[in-house]
Each structure stands twice: as C-alpha cells, then as structure tokens.
C-alpha cells in the first residue's frame, strides 16, 4: 500500500500508548497476600519454569521465579520484565493481525483503512486490561483475529488452526467457537456435502483434533490429571457469578437474590438454556447463509449472548465481544464506537481498584476523538448507515408512522453517554452510603447491562434482516 509510512506511524502510536499505560499501577500492586492478576501470571511462570527445568530464564534473574520463595515478588526490574513480555506478545501476534485485517478490508480508501487501524489499536479496554491491570489477552485475541482473517480470506485451514491455538491459550475463546463452527459448516454445505464440502469438513476436523492433541499431550498421561485440568478451566462450582459483572444474572440479583434462592443445578440449566436460546437464531442463519459479514456480526451477538447469560462471567470477558465489534467498526462506526465506550465503562470498578483512573479517562478520550475524526460518526446516523433499513421497512408495513428510529437511537446515545459520565464522576468523587457500600459498582453494572441488552437486540436485528433483497435494494437506490 502506498501509505505504509502512515500505517507505521499508527502502529507506533498504538505501542506508545500501551507502554505509557504500563507505567501505571498493576492489579494487586502492594496488596498482600492475594495481590492480583500480576502475581497470578508471575506465579504461573514460577510453576511452569520450575517443574520441568528449562534453561532460558536463568539468564535473566532466577530470583523472580524461585519456587515458593518468590511469592509476592515485586520489584522495579521485574515489573519492567513483565510489561515488556506483554508488549512483545502484542507486537508479534495482535498488532500484525489488526494491520493485516485493515489492509484487507474491501471498498475502503487507504486513508480510511489507516484510520480504522488507529481506532482499533486505540481501543481502551484491551490496553487498560493488558497493560494496566496486567493480563495477556492480546495473545488469545490475536490468534482469534488471525482465525477470522484466515477464514474470511478463504484460507479455512490456517484460520481454524489459529483459532484452535486461541482456544488452547485461553478457554474463554470458546465464546467465539460457535460462529466459527457454524460458518465453516455453512461453507461446507454450500460447497455440497457430497463433493468438495465433505473434503473440506474432513480436513477441518483433522486440523482441529491434531492441534488439540498437540496442546494437551503432556496432560493426557492420566485421566485424573485431565479431569483436574478441566475442573480448573471450567469452575462450575464457583457459582452463577462472582463480584460485580454487567450481565443479566448480576443485574437480576439486585431485585431478586436468585443466587441464594435457586439450587446450583437449576442455575446451571437456566443459564445454559438462556444462552443458547439467545444465540440460536443467528447461528442457524449463519449455517444457511454463510457470508463474511454475517460471520463477523454473529461473532458479536454470540459472544454478547454468552457474556450476558453464561456462568461465572468476569467483567473482563467483555473484551471477547469488543474484538468482533472492532472488526465491524468500518461498517457501522456510530454503533461500534458507542458499544466500545460502554464496554470500557463497564470495567470501571475494576480499573478504579487498580488506580487506573487517569489512563482510563485519557485513553477513552483519545479513542473517542480518533473515531469522531476518522469516521465522522455523528453524520452516519441515518437508517441506512445503521444497517436498519430493511428492518424499518418491514416494521413500516404494519406501523406506517415508524420513521423516527434514527432519532430515537441518537437520543438513546446521548442519554447513555450522559449517564456514563455522571456515574464516573459520582464514583470518583462521592463516597457510597454506609448501608450500600457497593452502590456505585452495582449501578455501573446495571447501566452497562441495559446498554448491552439493547446492543444484543440491535445486532440480532441486523443479522436477521440482512438478506439478499436488502443488498439489492441498496444497489437500486
């Protein structure tokens, strides 16, 4: 591409913002004995290093990972090391995927591609969690993105391989598994199950099985060990939800303490059923009409369904929804920007606990300014731009006066942003009343949940009403 230097500049800006955020505090800094995610990652390094012995880390500093004696180790040099590993992982896996994705977008000018890359790289949620709170989400999200890239460009085998790596890195990626499965299945059906389709199906199955076997091989030695791993990965004993998270069960809990009323297995069944009911329509449509655009939107709605209805969801899981939304930024800039702002806001209690208020505010503002200048989002709020044209036409068959959809959405946006700003100000400046110490966290979760429900409905509408006739209408008009 001719403007490669601008893309390099964009990547450098992304890296700079990431590193400056990492200069701040991390999760559990100076808070023994539990510490936080930072200590968790260090602990995992301790375990994986010490039991079997490897050579590489001796070169750096053995004190950081000495078995047992390094619990709670905190020093400036160690912090630098940990932050550098996150940056390198990001640079090798996530960032190239984003750049390649933006370069492969069709029907967009080079300038818009670069602007798109800038906005995705400036998404505050991922930066704050990975570089502030401290996690390695960019690895799993990066692999998932490579998967999406591969499959959208018809390199199905490589795409599936990448996605299997993503799942085996972090089991949360299973949120994305269904759309991948449905899309690939749909492709196989389209090619005809008797001929090429069947061959493709077999190849895909082999790749998936092979990658899982390779990753899990060391743990297959005993049945008990395998079960132990599974129990650690899917902690069904831990309950419907933990702490405050912006999903249905937590919000419901405000009015009716379902966590205490209902027995554990009923909660499991309830959550399972509601999750699958909410994502079934989109997935079925994807199998019957596989398209790249439908795939991306189904990723969004599936992940969102899982987030809202599933078991033991953490607030950080919203990142799994944010990644697909970033991918559709160029198609519906207004709604995507809105969603991404809400997703960052929903993690506010966590970010405040990690003392990341300043980076949060700054990165959110930077992201907002980038989106506004790149996409002129406030000019793209017509029905057609919001991809709701076919929906409104269908509704207008029964309700001829239904012409004010876009204005409603604009007002909702305004209300949503004002509420978020007010809640942020209140949480930061005021103290909660004595009787309700968690008031602000619960309010944040509740408001975010309402927003997410609205988005769930919106994205499902787009998927269901996105038909070939809709596309023909666009061409005619």
């Amino acid at each position, binding site marked *: 591409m001719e403007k490669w*230097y*601008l893309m*390099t*500049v964009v990547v*450098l*800006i992304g*890296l*700079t*913002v990431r*590193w*400056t*955020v990492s*200069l*701040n505090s991390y999760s559990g800094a100076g808070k023994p004995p539990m510490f936080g995610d930072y200590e968790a990652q260090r602990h995992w390094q301790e375990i994986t290093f010490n039991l079997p012995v490897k050579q590489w880390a001796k070169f750096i500093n053995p004190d950081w990972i000495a078995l047992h004696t390094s619990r709670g180790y905190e020093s*400036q*040099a160690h912090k*630098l090391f940990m932050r*550098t590993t996150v*940056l390198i992982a990001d640079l090798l896996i996530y960032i190239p995927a984003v750049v390649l994705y933006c370069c492969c977008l069709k029907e967009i000018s080079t*300038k818009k591609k670069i602007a798109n890359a800038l906005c995705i790289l400036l998404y505050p949620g991922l930066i704050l969690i990975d570089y502030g709170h401290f996690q390695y989400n960019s690895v799993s999200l990066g692999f998932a993105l490579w998967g999406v890239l591969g499959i959208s460009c018809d390199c199905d085998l490589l795409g599936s391989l990448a996605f299997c790596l993503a799942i085996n890195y972090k089991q949360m990626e299973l949120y994305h598994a269904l759309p991948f499965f449905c899309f690939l299945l749909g492709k196989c059906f389209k090619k005809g199950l008797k001929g090429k389709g069947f061959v493709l199906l077999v190849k895909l199955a082999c790749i998936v099985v092979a990658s899982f076997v390779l990753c899990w091989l060391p743990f297959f030695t005993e049945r008990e060990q395998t079960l132990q791993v599974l129990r650690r990965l899917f902690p069904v004993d831990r309950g419907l939800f933990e702490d405050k998270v912006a999903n249905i069960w937590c919000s419901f809990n405000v009015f009716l303490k379902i966590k205490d009323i209902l027995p554990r297995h009923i909660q499991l069944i309830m959550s399972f059923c509601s999750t699958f009911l909410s994502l079934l329509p989109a997935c079925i449509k994807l199998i019957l009409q596989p398209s790249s655009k439908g795939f991306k939107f189904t990723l969004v709605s599936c992940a969102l369904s899982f987030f809202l209805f599933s078991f033991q969801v953490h607030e950080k899981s919203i990142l799994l929804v944010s990644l697909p939304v970033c991918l559709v930024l160029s198609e519906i800039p207004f709604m995507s920007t809105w969603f991404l702002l809400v997703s960052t806001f929903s993690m506010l209690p966590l970010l405040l606990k990690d003392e990341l208020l*300043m*980076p949060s505010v*700054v*990165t959110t*503002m*930077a992201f907002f*300014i*980038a989106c*506004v*200048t790149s996409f*002129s989002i*406030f*000019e793209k*709020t017509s029905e057609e731009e919001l991809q709701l044209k076919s929906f409104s036409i269908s509704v207008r068959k029964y309700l001829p006066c239904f012409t004010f959809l876009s204005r409603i959405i*604009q007002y909702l946006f305004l209300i949503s942003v004002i509420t978020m700003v007010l809640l942020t100000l209140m949480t930061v400046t005021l103290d909660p009343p004595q009787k309700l110490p968690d008031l602000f966290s619960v309010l944040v979760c509740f408001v975010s949940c309402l927003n997410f429900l609205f988005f769930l409905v919106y994205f499902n509408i787009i998927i269901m009403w996105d038909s070939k006739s809709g596309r023909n209408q666009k061409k005619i008009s």
Partner: protein
Amino acid sequence: MAALTIATGTGNWFSALALGVTLLKCLLIPTYHSTDFEVHRNWLAITHSLPISQWYYEATSEWTLDYPPFFAWFEYILSHVAKYFDQEMLNVHNLNYSSSRTLLFQRFSVIFMDVLFVYAVRECCKCIDGKKVGKELTEKPKFILSVLLLWNFGLLIADHIHFQYNGFLFGLMLLSIARLFQKRHMEGAFLFAVLLHFKHIYLYVTPAYGVYLLRSYCFTANKPDGSIRWKSFSFVRVISLGLVVFLVSALSLGPFLALNQLPQVFSRLFPFKRGLCHAYWAPNFWALYNALDKVLSVIGLKLKFLDPNNIPKASMTSGLVQQFQHTVLPSVTPLATLICTLIAILPSIFCLWFKPQGPRGFLRCLTLCALSSFMFGWHVHEKAILLAILPMSLLSVGKAGDASIFLILTTTGHYSLFPLLFTAPELPIKILLMLLFTIYSISSLKTLFRKEKPLFNWMETFYLLGLGPLEVCCEFVFPFTSWKVKYPFIPLLLTSVYCAVGITYAWFKLYVPVLIDSAIGKTKKQ
C-alpha cells in the same frame, strides 16, 4: 446531533492533532523527571514564601533562581494555584519534596501552558504557504507543519518527561515570528522583549530580531535594486520600538534596580564559573574540539611526545561541571567562544542587512543565529538545539533544500537528546516517539517534495541510518561489555561526537547558500 457535530469540530484536524498530543502528554505524567522538577518546585517555594528582595539571594537549595524576573513572577502566579494542591511544596525547606499531588500539579501546569504554543502554531500555519502538491489533507504543508511542531519529539521529551517549561516560551517566539510575517512588527517586537525577560537564552537570536526590525521596519522603503534607502528612515518607528523594549525591561528589572540588586541578578543569570561543556557534551563544535584534543593526547602519549605527568588528571568526560584545560590544543575561554560566535553570526547578519528578503530571510537568519550560537557557545546545553529546530520547521515546508537540511538537523538533534532519559522504563518511550517523529517527518516531506530531486544523497542516508546501530551499541550492547566499568563515558562520547558531525554538516549546508548569495550581492554592487 448537528450541535454535537459542530461541537466536536468534525473535520477540524487541527483540534484533533492538538487534543491528541495533549492526551499523550497526560499519559506521560508518571514518567521519570529530572532534577529540573525540584528546581521549579524550589522556585515556587521561593516566590511564594519570600519577599521580592530575597528572591535572587535565597540559597537554601542548590537550585537557585537563575531565570529573569518575568519567569519568577510566573512561578509566583503558579504558586497561588499550587497551594490548593499541596501546601507543603511551597515550603523552602522541603527539599526534594515530590508528593503525588505536587507531581500532578507541576505536570498539569506544563500541559496547560502549552496552550500558548498551540495558539502560536495555529498562527504560524496561517502565515506559511508552501507548495501545493495534492488535494489530500495529509499532503498539505499546513498539516505537515502542524504535526512537526505540535508533536515535536524534542519538546515532548524535554517538557513532559525531563520537565521544563519550554513549550510556552517557544510559543511566544513562534508567535512573535508569526506577527512579523503578518507585518505586525510592534507586536512581534513586544512579544520578543517579553520572551527575553522570561528566559535569557533567547539572547542568542536577538541580533536577528534587531537587525531585521531596524532594516525592514525602521527603513520604510528600499531602492529598486533592493539596497537601503537612507532617506526612508523613520524616527517614529525607531523610537516606538525602543520605547516598547524599554518599557518591558523596566517592568521586569525595575523593582530590582530600585533594590540595588542588579549585579546579583546578573551574576545569577550569567554564571560563567561553569565549564566549557556540560557534563554531557552538547554536540557542537567544542565537542569535536574536545574529542580531537583527547585523540591527539592519546596519540601523543603513545608516541612519547607528551609527558604523562604533565597531563591534568581530571577528565572532561566525568560527570562534574568544572573548568578544565585541554592538553594538546589551546584551552578555550569564555571570551574566545564569544568571539567565535560573533564571527559565525556576522555573515548572516550582513546578508539580512544588505539583502533583506522579507520575513523568510529573517527566519533563515534567526535559525542561523541560533545554530551558530549552539555551535560555538559557552556551556551550551544540548536542549538548546530546539532553538534552531523549531524555527527551521517553518522553513522546511517551503523548499526542498531546506527540508533536507531540516531533516538532518532534526534527526541528529533529537537523537542527541537521548542521554537526557537514561532510565529503563523510559527507553521504549524515547525510541518509539523518536521513530514516530522521524518516520513521519521524513516520509511526509519526501511526499511533499516528490516532484523534485531526492532529499538525501547516499552519504547523508548512510549517516542517518547509522544512528540505529549507534543506539543499539550504546544502550543494549555496551552495558554488557567489560568496558562499562573502565570507560563508562564512551556511549556519551560517541553520541556527542556522532551528532556533532551531523549538526556541523547541517550548519554548513544552511550557511553556504547565504554566503554565496552575499558574495554575489557584493560582486553585483562592485
């Protein structure tokens, strides 16, 4: 929605650039800060808690007040805001006090004062009209200039990490330049006079201002061949200029004159007891001079021309700032540097007098004055290179030749600022920001002048690319070698000398056309 659109200034790229860099500055708040942070805290304390008569005598802290009175008044005003953040920082005896609120206040004060810089950049963008190559926004000279000034690497590093208040001072300078371009000479002169009383380092460029205002403002017309028309001298203008300068100086130095403290103030402002070079040699002519002296002395020792007992033990490259003597080449005195500087700026001044080319010629002369003073000055700090880089940015979007010189000067000058940030967490920041600025500036200027011959020849390209391996050697390879203990100054020495070569080259390249022009002018006259 329409209101929101207007409010957010859709399509207003300048606001987006300014806001973007401001947010980046906010992210840089928790970075390392140098002793300059304590310097300014101390000045807040001095101006807040002591009467004026004590300001230039107070010496509890080693960081005594050594800027002109306007800056002291500026600190005084700031201190009245500071007391709402943390009262303790205003105590003169609280040395090295740096609570989180103090840090926040100081950092925000720098970010806030940069508003003046942003305004000045906006005014400058209105004045320049470079080549119009394409219709795309990113190819317009205004856009490129805005990025080069607002996102200037040196300014970001010096102000928002190292900690200084250069932003608004350079804003004043750029604003005065813009006013001169807009033919509002009185305002330009006034702004410059104010600037001088904020930070006296701008004395370096006073000759350019003085000669330009005298020649192009006080003489209202020229003869047809461009030479001076003596009869068009306007007494009114001279007197009004003089009055402005006098009033500003009176406002600034008046109180201290009344207190009979002028000698003390001047001794604080011009401390000549410091050495020829800063602890880390600024990459100017004297760095090359020192290096040559060292090389000759080593050769002399090896070849037994010199007696080891006669060589002074103290090395110029250790971290102390004292007066040293050279071993082989003659020692340099402050007077010698002054004479060299004057000789260096004289040709450009003559050119400005005999062949004025309007504001552009003035800008060129100003850049040359700043660069020549950097080259030959006494105890020059490497941050002074910004004094040449920022005005040169205005020239760079005009002509391809200027763009080429600008890029060499900027890249080398910015690289020479690297030793200012020596801590590990800031290493990725300085490398990333440097790459950001360098890649952008080179590519955008190349695109702007793509229809002319290439900006760099092979030698220049090679030299600029050599900065990469130099950085790798100094920061990544050297610390792990055995030389780190024996010769710890080698990375600084290498950086200084390598950059000095580049800056000297840029200085020559900028000067040669001026000399040729003035030579042609003289032959024409004859």
